[in-house]
């Protein structure tokens, strides 16, 4: 069987584009607005969410047959919250500057609808392997949107990519100016809207 036909591959690839958590399901918009001013923060945020999501899916899927139904949400939440705190501690230890910039938003992964949503709708009903792939896929889908938005915002807003100046100073001499609007949250709204339009247009059956 070809790799692209396996169930595991499907669990990973479907949320990447067709069922993308941000551009399709409209979840996790809050953090997508807040951390996409720079590529660096967007990448780290995407990685943190992918880490939390895939391991919470894995843990919950492993326990899916023993979790008592009446307390399942509390159990899910404690697993997610623990993972988020671990991710936050790791960032603080190794990427201190970025963790300062992300401030509350790493902690707010706990309330990110994507994580809880995948635990409830997917991990509780699928095998650990599939759930882990689903987590990776959703995380990658989330990250890809975040990074695309951050790419546009950082390039147009401050003329940089990953902190390095890419628009030559000659352009500024000729009268080019950074678009200050891109640094504000409403810009992310508009870009996400355009991305949704682009995706619908690409995936629609014309």
């Amino acid at each position: 069987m070809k790799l692209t036909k396996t169930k595991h591959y499907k669990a990973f690839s479907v949320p990447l584009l067709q069922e993308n958590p941000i551009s399709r399901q409209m979840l996790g918009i809050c953090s997508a607005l807040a951390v996409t001013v720079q590529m660096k923060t967007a990448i780290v945020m995407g990685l943190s969410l992918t880490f939390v999501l895939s391991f919470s899916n894995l843990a919950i899927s492993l326990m899916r047959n023993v979790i008592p139904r009446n307390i399942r949400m509390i159990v899910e939440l404690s697993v997610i919250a623990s993972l988020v705190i671990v991710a936050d501690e790791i960032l603080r230890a190794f990427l201190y500057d970025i963790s300062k910039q992300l401030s509350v938003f790493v902690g707010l992964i706990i309330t990110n609808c994507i994580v809880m949503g995948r635990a409830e709708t997917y991990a509780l009903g699928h095998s650990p392997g599939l759930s882990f792939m689903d987590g990776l896929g959703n995380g990658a889908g989330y990250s890809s949107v975040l990074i695309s938005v951050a790419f546009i915002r950082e390039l147009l807003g401050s003329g940089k990519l990953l902190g390095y100046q890419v628009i030559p100073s000659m352009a500024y001499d000729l009268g080019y100016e950074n678009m200050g609007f891109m640094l504000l949250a409403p810009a992310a709204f508009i870009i996400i809207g355009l991305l949704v339009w682009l995706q619908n247009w690409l995936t629609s059956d014309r």
Partner: protein
Amino acid sequence: MSSYVKSILFALTTAVICSFLLTAASAGLKGFQLENIDVDKKKNILMAVGLVDSEEPYQKKDILDLYGENIQSFRVSLEGEVVSRDKASEASLPIYIYQKDREITSYIIPVNTRGLWGKIFGYLALNSDGSTVTGFTVYKHSETPGLGGEIEKRWFQKNFEGKKILDKAGSFASISIAKGFLPESFPQDKLPNYVDGISGATLTGKYLTAGLKNVLQAYEPVSIKFRTKQSIQIREK
């Protein structure tokens, strides 16, 4: 076993496992985190005197090297005398000196004040003339992101550069944070003592104003020494 007991047992086990995981992560990473916090403080001191640009990326080693070359830390008594480290009592205050070519360029005082939701920690650097602010930074706070949290942003901190802690007559006036932006009709002679505030964060500004006044008041004996050009006795380490 009834389902209630089962639920409670399950919840208990989950809680215990999670808490072990968290303790392990927190204890295992503590060393790295403390080191980062220390480097971050030093970076903020360097930022306050303008040796480091907050927008540029720096390696840990660069910060430590720059700090080691330029900054010395001392404790001063309440009267503004430098006290030796071993005699330093509770009543002495920490101060940092930035020396360039064996001349004191500026001195940095730590700011530690109440904010709206928690404490605000930062540094205020003053020129060796004893009255001009060369920089202000905040390295730790719990203000609302986007509102009071703007105190950690460059646009806010930049406003402090060049401001005076003395009024026109030469008496102590501290630096106050205005309510929102300073209006154009603001009296010219008061301008050096005021900085633009953050709209939506009036209380943060109010607490920070009070905090800066307290801190500057406490360090006034040192500032007077600088102003009157009395030499501050510092011994080389």
